[in-house]
């Protein structure tokens, strides 16, 4: 199945096309201040480069996050509404899984790490690689990177966009981790989202586009906005 994959959880709009085996397109566009402005254009140009139109796409994969709360709302809304509008199946893919995919050939255990925005706060998930497939082990971790240290008990490769920095913080916390942790700097790839979605969709495991929502992993802690918004003149 030819699948369009998108992910807007990071500072880029990741757009790719894959049939589950071959990558037909894999592009990354700096999202400047937000993903919303360009995302549809990015999708269109990536499809065009692959010699495709939306019509020929047979399914949609969308990165669910975690990551930028604004980014994931935009990406998931675009993904599900494209699916709804074209009557094509959609599969939501956790962004951490897409990141882990990049290192699946490098270690039997992969830890995907995404910045949670504030200082050293992170989202993490560990994946066991079995027959080239990623199986998540344990719950999602949301917390400070140094609190990840005691959870690392065996050799693991950490994948993400700031992993080298996190590595330094982890070995500071526990120097024995030097022998256990390898790193791979990577950003989510649209083609990977598409591949993972293709695998799901080929097994008939699609999501309901109406109910598809992002994977925030954290509640908003904002106080009530006591003033709705300034009366714009």
């Amino acid at each position, binding site marked *: 199945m030819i699948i369009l994959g998108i992910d807007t959880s990071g500072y880029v709009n990741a757009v790719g096309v894959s049939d589950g085996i071959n990558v037909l397109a894999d592009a990354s566009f700096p999202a400047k201040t937000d993903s*919303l402005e360009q995302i549809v254009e990015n999708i269109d140009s990536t499809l065009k480069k692959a010699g495709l139109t939306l019509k020929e796409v047979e399914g949609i994969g969308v990165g669910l996050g975690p990551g930028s*709360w604004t980014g994931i*709302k935009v990406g998931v*809304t*675009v993904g599900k509404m494209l699916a709804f509008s074209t009557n094509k199946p959609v599969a939501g893919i956790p962004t951490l899984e897409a990141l882990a995919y990049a290192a699946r050939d490098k270690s039997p255990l992969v830890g995907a790490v995404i910045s949670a925005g504030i200082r050293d706060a992170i989202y993490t998930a560990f994946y066991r690689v079995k027959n080239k497939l990623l199986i998540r082990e344990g719950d999602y971790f949301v917390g400070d990177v140094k609190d990840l240290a005691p959870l690392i008990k065996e050799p693991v490769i950490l994948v993400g966009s700031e992993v080298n920095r996190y590595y330094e913080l982890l070995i500071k916390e526990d120097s024995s981790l030097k022998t256990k942790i390898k790193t791979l700097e990577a950003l989510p790839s649209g083609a990977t989202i598409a591949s993972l979605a293709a695998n799901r969709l080929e097994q008939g495991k699609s999501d309901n586009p109406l109910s598809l929502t992002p994977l925030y992993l954290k509640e*908003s802690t904002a*106080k009530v906005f006591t003033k709705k918004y300034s009366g*714009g003149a």
Partner: protein
Amino acid sequence: MLILGIETSCDETSAALVADGKTILSNVIATQLDLLKKYGGVVPEVAARRHTELIGYVIKEALDTAGKTLDDVEAVAVTSRQGLIGCLMVGVAAAKSISYAKQIPLIGLHHIEGHIFANRLSNPDLPVPHICLTVSGGHNMLVHVQKNCRYKVLGTTLDDAAGEAFDKIAKFLGLDFPGGPVIDKLSQQGNRQAFSFPRPMIRSQALDFSFSGLKTAVINMFKEKIASDEALPLADIAASFQEAIVDVLVAKTLRAVEEHDLKVVSVTGGVSANSRLREVFAETCKKKGIQVFSPKLSLCTDNAAMIAAAGYARMMLGERSDLRLNVFPNAPLGG
């Protein structure tokens, strides 16, 4: 021309199908009342997450209720200016996707223009030019609607919008949320002359509004009564407070009408549903030979049908947005 309207600027997720800018085939509004009551107001991130959850359902329901599919939709109109940024983004993301997938035109609208059109949609014989008072929880504006889609903003609030003042006083008096409808109802049993609250800026030449002084006066009076262990006649307090707001809204609007030598007033937005406001406008305007129009109740609060109607008008003028449409939470209501 069948237009799908989408409105997600604050705490209501809405989608509507409107034909030729005037026939409402559906107008689906999902409120976030449970969240508003839980948090005592709008938490932008929470509201935006709720929009993301609901937007697909609301669009589908709008189509189903109208007996249409996306194949029948000829354009998409969405609120892209004025509102909470994260909330606006959800509507625009959905609108762009539909526009691209179905290869149909897209237009982004200003939320206040939506309210201006809510009245034109509800009252097809509302003439232009007119003076429009848009008053709600988030807005309190006087606009000279000069001609179709051409506006001059005459005044706005310097602090709270009237709807906000209603919410805050209602909360303070221990009443339910949202405050407007509760105070409206309670006031009907109260004496509106029991307390003499200030009518802020009523004598000023400016057409701007300010309600924080009124709010403070009510709160202070209430606290004094509690301190001296006096009875708290809530209905009288509500009625007197409401009367102060109504007096200011009516006075400023009529001043604008006179200054512009016009004979037509449009009162729109959530607070325009207030029964006392409608009553005083009707009485005062009748005496002065001025026509006054208000939307039917379902078009007073935020809704997508008004956005579809505004979108139709703009599209008939040849306007379109492209797929780079972005959101501008504080955009002025342009000409």
